[in-house]
């Protein structure tokens, strides 16, 4: 790990005050469960850490009846919140399906959104990777990509976004509030295109302040289904956040793309009366699986159908 200075921010303004002046760049620190991990691997090398984990730690009722979740709210607290459990059950389930009990106690809402891919090449600085070292190549394309993207990838990167929480938030039309602007969650994460090193549209000196989940009646009838290689404490192969009350519908996939994948096409198909299977296929038509991950197309379709059947 490179040496760095550490500072605990007392407010949003304070957090932004010196941010950006550091030689190897500054980073905001949440729970550190991803950033410290990557710093120890040599993937991240900030020379300044600004601790924002103690700012914005409450979950408040939004003006219109939604929820405003402070960026510093820990994943475990958010999952346990009664309003979240009853009004957005898929969000609580997604959080509880992620990481482990002790990690969730550290992990923050802001940090969770910004956690980086679990592509194995990205995490090993002795291997090439366009996301970590622009221009070095993407060994995953020809190499090991069984758990990587089937939609929205580019020749430069086929990584997936690992967050479970973000999938549920994408389904629920959440909005990310930063120190500068409000960004719909579905536009917050990027596709890799020819800049795979940019995971999101956030600028380096832009701070996430809160995530707002709007009031959404259908969200009360929602579920999160995560398929993984062991029963707990594993990243998703495929996951689905779905809300359906026979009328309104929201669907997002995890594990398929560089971002939480809001399934607008599938939602549209269901609204116009298609079967669950046909709706899944309408969405997955655009899939371009790689050599070893075609199974995800079928897995995603079946997982979606199953989730919707359970909600029906």
């Amino acid at each position, binding site marked *: *790990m*490179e*040496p760095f200075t550490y500072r605990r921010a007392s407010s949003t303004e304070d957090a932004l005050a010196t941010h950006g002046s550091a030689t190897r760049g500054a980073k905001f620190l949440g729970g550190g469960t991803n950033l410290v991990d990557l710093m*120890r691997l*040599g993937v991240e090398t900030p020379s300044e850490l600004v601790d924002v984990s103690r700012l914005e730690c409450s979950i408040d009722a939004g003006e219109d009846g939604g929820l405003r979740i402070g960026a510093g709210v820990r994943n475990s607290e958010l999952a346990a919140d009664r309003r979240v459990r009853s009004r957005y059950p898929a969000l609580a389930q997604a959080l509880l399906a992620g990481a482990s009990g002790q990690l969730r106690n550290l992990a923050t809402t802001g940090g969770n959104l910004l956690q980086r891919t*679990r592509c*194995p*090449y990205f*995490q*090993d*600085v*002795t*291997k090439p990777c366009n996301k970590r070292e622009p221009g070095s190549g993407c*060994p995953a394309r*020809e*190499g*090991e990509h*069984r758990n990587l993207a089937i939609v929205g990838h580019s020749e430069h990167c086929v990584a997936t976004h690992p967050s479970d929480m973000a999938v549920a938030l994408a389904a629920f039309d959440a909005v990310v509030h930063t120190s500068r602007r409000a960004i719909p969650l579905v536009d917050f994460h990027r596709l890799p295109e020819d800049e795979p090193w940019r995971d999101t549209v956030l600028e380096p000196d832009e701070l996430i302040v809160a995530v707002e989940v709007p009031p959404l009646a259908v969200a009360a009838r929602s579920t999160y*289904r995560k*398929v*993984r*290689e*062991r*029963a*707990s*404490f*594993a*990243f998703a*192969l495929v996951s689905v956040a779905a809300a359906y009350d026979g009328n309104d519908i929201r669907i997002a996939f995890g594990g398929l793309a560089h971002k939480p994948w809001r399934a607008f096409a599938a939602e549209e198909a269901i609204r116009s009366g298609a079967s669950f299977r046909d709706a899944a296929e309408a969405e997955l038509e655009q899939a371009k699986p790689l050599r*070893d*991950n075609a*199974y*995800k197309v*079928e*897995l995603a379709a*079946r*997982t979606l*159908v*199953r989730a919707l059947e359970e909600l029906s």
Partner: protein
Amino acid sequence: MSVAPTRVVGTPADRLEGRDKVQGEATYAYEYEVEHVAYATPVVSTIAKGRIRSIDSSAALAADGVIAVLTWENAPKLPKAEGELAILQSPQVSYRGQIVGAVVAESYEAARHAELLVRFEYDVEEHDVELRADHPTLYKPGKVNPEFPTDTEEGDVERALEEAAHAIDETYTTPTEHNNAMEPHATIAIWDGPSLTLYDSNQGAHAHRETFAKTFDMPPEQVRVIARHVGGGFGSKGTPRPHAVLAALAARHVERPVKLAVTRQQMFTLTGYRTPTIQRLRLGCDERGMLTAIAHDVVEQTSTVDEFAEQTAVVTRMLYASPNRRTTHRLARLDVPTPSWMRAPGECPGMYALESAMDELAIAAGIDPIELRIRNDPEIDPESGNRFSTRNLVACLREGADRFGWKPGSRRNGRTLAGLGVAASTYPARRRPSQAHARRNGDGTFTMRVGAVDIGTGARTVLAQIAADELAVELDRIHIEIGDSAFGSAPVAGGSAGASSWGTAVVRACRLLRAGDEDEVHVDTSDSADAEEPLAKHGFGAIFVEAHVDVDTAEVRVARALGVFGVGRILNPKTARSQLIGGMTMGIGMALMEETRVDGRLGAFVDQDLAMYHVPVNADVLDVDATWIDEDDPHINPMGAKGIGEIGIVGTAAAVANAVHDATGVRVRDLPITPDKLVGRI
């Protein structure tokens, strides 16, 4: 030898070091307080094959807190070092992740930082790290581990297969698997003049002392290895690993004590792994299910540094009778780290294939898989012709079928398919020479000293139980000291032979103490270890599994698993059950999730931590239990015991795979059985 009646042996005594472990007071290798200690960290190669052209240590040396950088250019020479232990002796790179340097620093943080600052330039050569059934370098090793013939052939297998009423011919593969003990390998090395003391996380203090003495060309008496508590090994700590040599080299170089812990990532290339295997199984039987042919042909890998020939098909030589039999092993020499010992080497991958094939044959022949195994249970060891000391496979199968409620056939419950699977398990029962020391303390207590290591097996506890019985005192009268090469020589905790070997020495020492007036005695069983009757000595067991498969997501869960074992006298039912369940749990991991993927282009392991290499977590283990049948085997040791450390894992993967097939009708022949292999096929 006769098996003596017991009082303390056979009771479920709590682990003697239990309190220490739950209070955080058990000290593991890295945790000894040593004055003026420096921190070392390995620097590893980033190519799979080639030569180091140049090294630039200047940035690392200039970094804050760095004391020294070792590379082959300045490291002390070790002319006697062999194989993977000959680190920093030449510019040659033979696998990716090989130790090519070390940073020694005042703090752990400084060492880890500077590790990334040492620059190497390589002349890169083309590498090959991928095992294939038709690999051009395949060769026949002179023997397979430890001393078995490479191939065997009896009768005419081809003809028997042609004439068989039912036959199967299938290929099964197992991937690279890593032991992943929870305690990463760690060493503190302290030189005092010509003497070397090592606090080291290993499975055998004496074996390590011998290898260290040889590597550093010094008399064994000048090396002391201490391993009082060891956080698991599963074979990977049975032989000295290169990092421990590095710690000692670094300590000599900087003339200070040095501590070094391998990172979890480095463990993947520095601390051994189980070779991937490609196994072709051909079985034939007659109308009644009597085997007429067994052929087991194995392809696996070794490195260019050393030969490691896993004895994968050896178990097939003794498990079932058949007039026509053949086993072969072929190795590919690849640019990889040398494979090494992992729990039940040979038996574990071999039995996955054999017991999957038996299941397939049972289905082909329309015979219940338990019945097929019972019909082919041999009277004598088919390979050697020797009698079995005890062989209770059939009893285990019957008892297990009864307890488990053996009723195979797919059942559907909502969106879940359930099925049952069974497989046999077996592991050799051995005893090796060992020494032990017993002292009468005069206050009614006794002190036993054995060079044993307790890697979690409960060795400390069962050895004390054995001593208590022999000395006719309560367990709390026995002080037991282990884990130190300063004690009499003792074999490694491995091959399920620990308790058998050390326990025999304890029995002898106690008997000698009781018989004489001396207050202190020392025994050595090496005189008697070889003089044994020619008997085939093995433990046996049967594993039963109920698998649940989600028809949509293809996730497999083991809802129930039961192992029934015939493993001689159980010395401590509490710790024995733990070991058997632990082995079965690792078998569930092998069946469903464990795999280290390889990138052929980069010559590298892709998975290299516990988030990528999945081992079972708590939620994966539902109803897993182990039990045993009454068995006393007087032919192995005076306790009547056989080993139990490995047999739990052996048949489990096959039982899971067979249960998945029973549930879904899909046979996955390449482990692990992950959702990608099943989805859409159910």
